[in-house]
């Protein structure tokens, strides 16, 4: 069993195979399940992700609170206008990431990657890249295993819980996972995947979890948007040969330690950050029908 990114990369290089393959084999070893079963489970997850993305960009999704919904769709319309500045692929990923989180906020069905609040980044980037790279179904499943391998290291060595480590542990982890998986899908090496993860996660360090009214909506949906774009840029940088001066495992460890020192008000308690802004408080009072002075 690999315990960190360095061991994961070494395994992939020594066996001359992809990171996704190492993850598939480990899953078979740990659970005693056949390759077919393991791939089948992931295929089912992929299907749920695809349905959530499609629902979010075509239907008028609205959360119960009314805070979120419809932005993924809005962005699709904007892309079609041909006026986008950051490019079609980038905005498509952003739109599909938001779409997933909007469905999540509306209590729709999603697949946590690694969590529900950060469920948009990995599928958002995947379904945008699908348009450009035309991957096979199997390659799309591999993408999820590659992302899962890096998430596995983060979950075991740091945290993927906003309540424990802030948003950096959720959207930060998802962004790193997606960046690494993008590199593999685009034909990069295992070590380039690790560089992409390091570059992406470095730019998410310190991100607090401060949901308005405690809802997984504001700013979660838009943080998934930025996570998706961050992941693509980090992947491009790694594919260009840029390396992170701080190795991936040390970035993960830094994320963990930052989480430990983060005050509880900034770890999913809705007591600080955006949740504590005048508008955040106003929205909270309105949603739950509690007078503002009692907050």
């Amino acid at each position, binding site marked *: 069993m690999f315990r960190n990114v360095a061991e994961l990369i070494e395994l992939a290089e020594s066996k001359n195979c992809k990171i996704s393959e190492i993850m598939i084999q480990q*899953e078979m070893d740990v659970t005693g399940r056949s390759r077919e079963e393991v791939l089948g489970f*992931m295929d089912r997850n992929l299907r749920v992700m695809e349905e959530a993305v499609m629902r979010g960009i075509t239907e008028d999704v609205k959360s119960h609170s009314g805070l979120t919904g419809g932005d993924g769709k809005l962005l699709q319309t904007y892309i079609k206008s041909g006026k986008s500045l950051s490019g079609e692929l980038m905005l498509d990923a952003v739109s599909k990431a938001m779409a997933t989180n909007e469905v999540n906020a509306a209590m729709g069905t999603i697949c946590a990657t690694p969590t529900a609040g950060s469920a948009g980044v990995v599928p958002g980037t995947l379904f945008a890249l699908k348009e450009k790279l035309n991957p096979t179904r199997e390659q799309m499943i591999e993408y999820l295993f590659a992302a899962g391998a890096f998430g*596995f290291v983060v979950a075991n060595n740091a945290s993927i819980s906003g309540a424990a480590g802030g948003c950096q542990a959720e959207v930060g982890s998802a962004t790193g996972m997606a960046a690494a998986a993008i590199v593999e899908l685009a034909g990069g090496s295992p070590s380039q995947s690790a560089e992409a993860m390091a570059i992406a996660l470095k730019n998410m360090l310190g991100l607090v979890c401060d949901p308005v009214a405690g809802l997984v909506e504001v700013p979660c949906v838009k943080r998934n948007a930025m996570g998706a774009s961050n992941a693509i840029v980090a992947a491009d940088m790694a594919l260009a040969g840029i390396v992170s001066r701080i190795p991936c495992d040390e970035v993960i460890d830094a994320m963990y330690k930052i989480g430990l020192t983060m005050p509880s008000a900034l770890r999913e308690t809705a007591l600080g950050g955006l949740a504590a802004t005048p508008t955040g408080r106003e929205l909270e009072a309105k949603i739950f029908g509690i007078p503002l002075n009692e907050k």
Partner: protein
Amino acid sequence: MKYKSVFDIIGPIMIGPSSSHTAGAARIGRVARSLFGRKPKYATISFYGSFAKTYRGHGTDVAIVGGILDYDTFDTRIVDALTIAKQEGIEVKMTAEDAITDHPNTARVIIGDETDRIEVVGISIGGGKIEITELNGFELRLSGNHPALLIVHNDKYGAIAGVANILAKHEINIGHMEVSRKEKGKEALMVIEIDQNADEIIINELNSLPIVQQVVKIHD
């Protein structure tokens, strides 16, 4: 390592909006339900930490009650769980506690009926993964990810050997095991994570041991 499967990371498939506060809560409720073994008449739920601050917004309340109704994380009936519980005659009480717990997402669930009651403390550690940390006052660590046997027995020599012998006879392998007791010589609890599901024959055989008071099994 806390996380062993890639599907802890890419997964679970679930109803939003939060893996720890919705899916994890549903799983805690569901473990309590399977430990109780039947539909309860009442459920008293206490939330701590982040659960206490944000349970309404995250649907933690409907999710944990959904779990008590035996719904999985992706069961869309979760959304209406509070109404369904009422219709099914389950009296639900919920409180947000100020006490500081070791883990920020902690829930205490007491469910029962006229004849029995159990008290379970669960923590939601991220990505929908949970651990059960307390059962009827016994401290334990149970992931709910493997089939497991919980055996309440007399704290006396031979209890472990008796149970292990029966499992060995049926070729059931033990992956992880813990024994705890509240007081020497009184009631004790064995938590055994096993690699195969134990069928009714095994449960009956374990129950027939004089030293064993109660056997509960948890499926994968």
